[in-house]
């Protein structure tokens, strides 16, 4: 069920409503990691995601790598352990290459552009 119930979409609204009514909404998150649950949570709500990105940027935390589809949507997510000063070093060390934020201030994008 995880990932199949974005806002306003999907054919399982009746099932979703039933789960909510019986208080089993947490089933959305069963079987996936905390990191994946957080990633999906951010992707569902643009405002929540934008704030999480701002917090990550302010704390210097690494941002998670994106899939091609996510990159197309210019959506970034907070890396596991990121978002707070306490987890900054761990996140930077453990989560692989940092993905550039495409909304940063304009400037030369590559050495090729610099040469031009």
């Amino acid at each position, binding site marked *: 069920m995880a990932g199949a*119930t974005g806002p306003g979409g999907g054919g399982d609204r009746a099932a979703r409503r039933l789960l909510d*009514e019986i208080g089993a*909404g947490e089933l959305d998150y*069963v079987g996936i990691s905390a990191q994946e*649950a957080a990633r999906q949570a951010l992707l569902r709500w643009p405002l*929540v995601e934008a*704030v*999480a990105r701002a917090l990550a940027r302010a704390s210097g935390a690494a941002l998670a790598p994106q899939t091609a589809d996510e990159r197309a949507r210019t959506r970034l997510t907070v890396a596991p352990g990121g978002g707070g000063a306490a987890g900054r070093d761990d996140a930077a060390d453990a989560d692989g290459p940092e993905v550039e934020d495409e909304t940063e201030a304009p400037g030369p994008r590559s050495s090729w552009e610099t040469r031009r």
Partner: protein
Amino acid sequence: MRTIGIVSMKGGVGRTTVAANLGAELARTGRAEVLLVDLDPRNQLGLHLGMSPEEVAGVSQAILDEPSRSRALHRGSDPLRWAPFGQPRERERLEVEERLVRQPELLRACLAGWSAPGEAISVLDSAAGPSGSLTALVELSDLLLVVLQADASSFATIPFLEEQLHPRRTRSDEGLSAHLLLNGVDEASRIGRDVRIALEQLQGRWAPLPFVIHHDEAVREAAALQRPVVEQAPGSQAAADFRTLAAWALEQLMGRRVADLGASPLTQAVVAAPGT
């Protein structure tokens, strides 16, 4: 005396309800004398405790006139006393704001006028967002609770917390102990669940408390009856939540051990998932 400050960066999140019920529950435990102080010009705190809507006297008057005599403005009786903000004229209200910004110690003088016989806790309810009362609370509080709801607009206030809270602190003897408290949580709300997950990823200073105050109709009913929900509906979910909050606050302030605060069901579900 130890001081708990209740603040929020936006209105309508139930900050005053939390203050009233936390204060009432702390008093009910019998472990401390409690003084609730309303610093919000909307003057709503006393309405949770039986105050007449026509009450005009309050702590604003003491801040303007004679802080050391503020005890005369207290209502209730031990172990739970409370002081309304009052209903000053607009010019006086602005003067109160200015004085609290320039001289937060005026509020300390107001509290000093209250001499409780045993261990004492003051619970201070601020106005929403930046204000003179926020400045005074950050300066005086031993424990600061930032109340928010599990929605996107509350989440959007978090980047401003650092800016709004810490520069106001001039006390250098100890750090500010600030915690996020989610209020009015509906377990069936999808956006609520997702915001809680997003918050739980904030593993630094602004990680939320591991328990929440659930949405409960008993809270609104108790408020309409001008009684704390912990007294009006002690068997309700919200009353249980406020007992947990009070036990946690006592532990924070007085080092008392709480056997089991418990994690939220949502946290348990995520933590229990394979691959975590």
